[in-house]
């Protein structure tokens, strides 16, 4: 039997990823005001408010909060805000709605892996937010050079970027897992919201983890949120070194593997339940 060779699963997935990515990019820019509001402004406000809070605490130039002075905290908050923007956003995945409304069913009859479509969302997010962060970063460095944090070295910049990217992927998998609970639960937005602000706290978005009490600090350093925001910011500033970066990569890598395994099991079981329910 002759004919065009069927591409391998990996090639098919990659092709689908590219097509879905273009679709996602078009979709996200369909409503321009929405794009500006959702993509540009998201996640900027809380760190700005915290700058004012810290300004009232650290009134004297010699005042310190842990190992941070005011200038150091501003630099940290700018970085934390930027890195949090790069992290996948829980509202970027409407998987639970698709499950509730039965839209997932149509994909079950198609020769594709549904997860690739979700991955396209992740890729879209990284691309858009990466662009936004670079723009904001350039504008900030031009307008406020005395306050704007500079990387300790080129290597520190690369290491921080790698940690954030891997951390973002772990958070994306977490969002996927929470959304997939829609196979069992009637409502999951509350869990998504809770995941989001617990994550923010654990990641040290508003208060650096090193400022927290020792027991809390030691615990958080074993969790991936810390390595997704707080640690990259400190690697960037030169407060953490190469050994810390390697530890972060190990923690994030292991987390990603575990989350991926759980995701596969949960998705398989969820689908079995979904189809079994006669949707």
């Amino acid at each position, binding site marked *: 039997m002759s004919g065009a060779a069927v591409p391998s699963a990996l090639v098919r997935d990659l092709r689908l990823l590219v097509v879905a990515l273009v679709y996602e990019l078009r979709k996200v820019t369909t409503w321009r005001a929405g794009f500006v509001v959702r993509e540009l402004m998201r996640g900027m406000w809380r760190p700005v408010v915290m700058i004012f809070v810290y300004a009232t605490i650290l009134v004297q130039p010699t005042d310190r909060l842990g190992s941070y002075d005011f200038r150091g905290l501003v630099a940290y908050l700018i970085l934390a805000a930027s890195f949090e923007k790069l992290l996948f956003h829980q509202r970027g995945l409407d998987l639970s709605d698709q499950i509730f409304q039965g839209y997932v069913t149509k994909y079950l009859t198609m020769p594709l892996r549904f997860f690739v479509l979700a991955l396209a969302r992740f890729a879209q997010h990284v691309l858009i937010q990466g662009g936004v962060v670079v723009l904001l970063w350039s504008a900030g460095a031009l307008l406020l050079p005395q306050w704007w944090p500079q990387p300790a070295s080129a290597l520190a910049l690369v290491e921080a970027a790698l940690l954030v990217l891997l951390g973002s992927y772990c958070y994306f998998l977490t969002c996927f897992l929470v959304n997939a609970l829609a196979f069992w639960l009637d409502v999951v937005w509350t869990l998504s919201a809770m995941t989001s*602000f617990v994550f923010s706290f654990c990641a040290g978005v508003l208060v650096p983890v090193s400022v927290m009490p020792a027991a809390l600090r030691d615990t958080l350093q074993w969790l991936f949120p810390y390595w997704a925001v707080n640690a990259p910011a400190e690697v960037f500033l030169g407060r953490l070194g190469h050994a810390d970066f390697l530890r972060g990569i190990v923690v994030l890598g292991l987390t990603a593997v575990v989350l991926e395994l759980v995701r596969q099991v949960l998705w398989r079981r969820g689908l079995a339940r979904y189809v079994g329910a006669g949707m």
Partner: protein
Amino acid sequence: MGALLHHLRLAREFARVGVIRKSQFRVEFLTQVVMDTAWYLVHIVTFEILYGHTDSIAGWDRPQVRVFLGFLFLSDAFWMIWLGQSWHFGRELKDGVLDSLRLRPGSPIFVYFFQRFSLEACINGLMAAGWLGWALSGIEGSFSVGGLVLLLWALALSFWTRTVLSVLFTIAEFRAINSDLSNVAWEVSMTLSDRPVDVFPLRFRQLLTSFIPVAALSTLPAALVLGRITPLEGVLHSAWIFVLGLGVFAWWKRSFRGYTSALG
């Protein structure tokens, strides 16, 4: 008076319907209680960490900030109990779901914004009230009738402001469909109200106590009860926010006239 009674009866019916709905989604009930509890904890722990390093934030000491948090939590619980529908406004406007508001009698603002009563938020409201009671007990001075009146007044101010802001932010969606502006404005204002507004520079603080009165969600009510502002200042703030609210409602109704269903 007749209209007021009619809307009170409607509110009772919305509450009844909310209870019935929640009895069908028990897991949602639990997860929402847990979610809000986690939200409370994150705020409390954040402030406790900061007060581990300092005695005062913008002139607010630890017991006073605990009272501030009590108002913040109760105000949030009020929003969750009655005004949760506002979160869906942008999408519903885009999808033309507001058609029935045009057709049915009664105040469209009331019927839309108060339609989604949340039973679980009542649990959070109780927890928040407990926290506020505990925080107030840590403040020097004995209980008095005057203090109780101040407390009720402060709560009324906070709840009224929540309603006004919920309605105000949705007006943006009429201008920019599917922009998420109302939700983002809401998130921003909540972020600004998470800390006493005294942390901000004077001009910005004035903005937050006047035209976008997020200060009246928790800072002003706490300041009123704690004696950080005088009752006269409280009256002036309350009167202004009441008038502002009426203006916002009129503006919303006017904007609603431009609603084009799902045609455009």
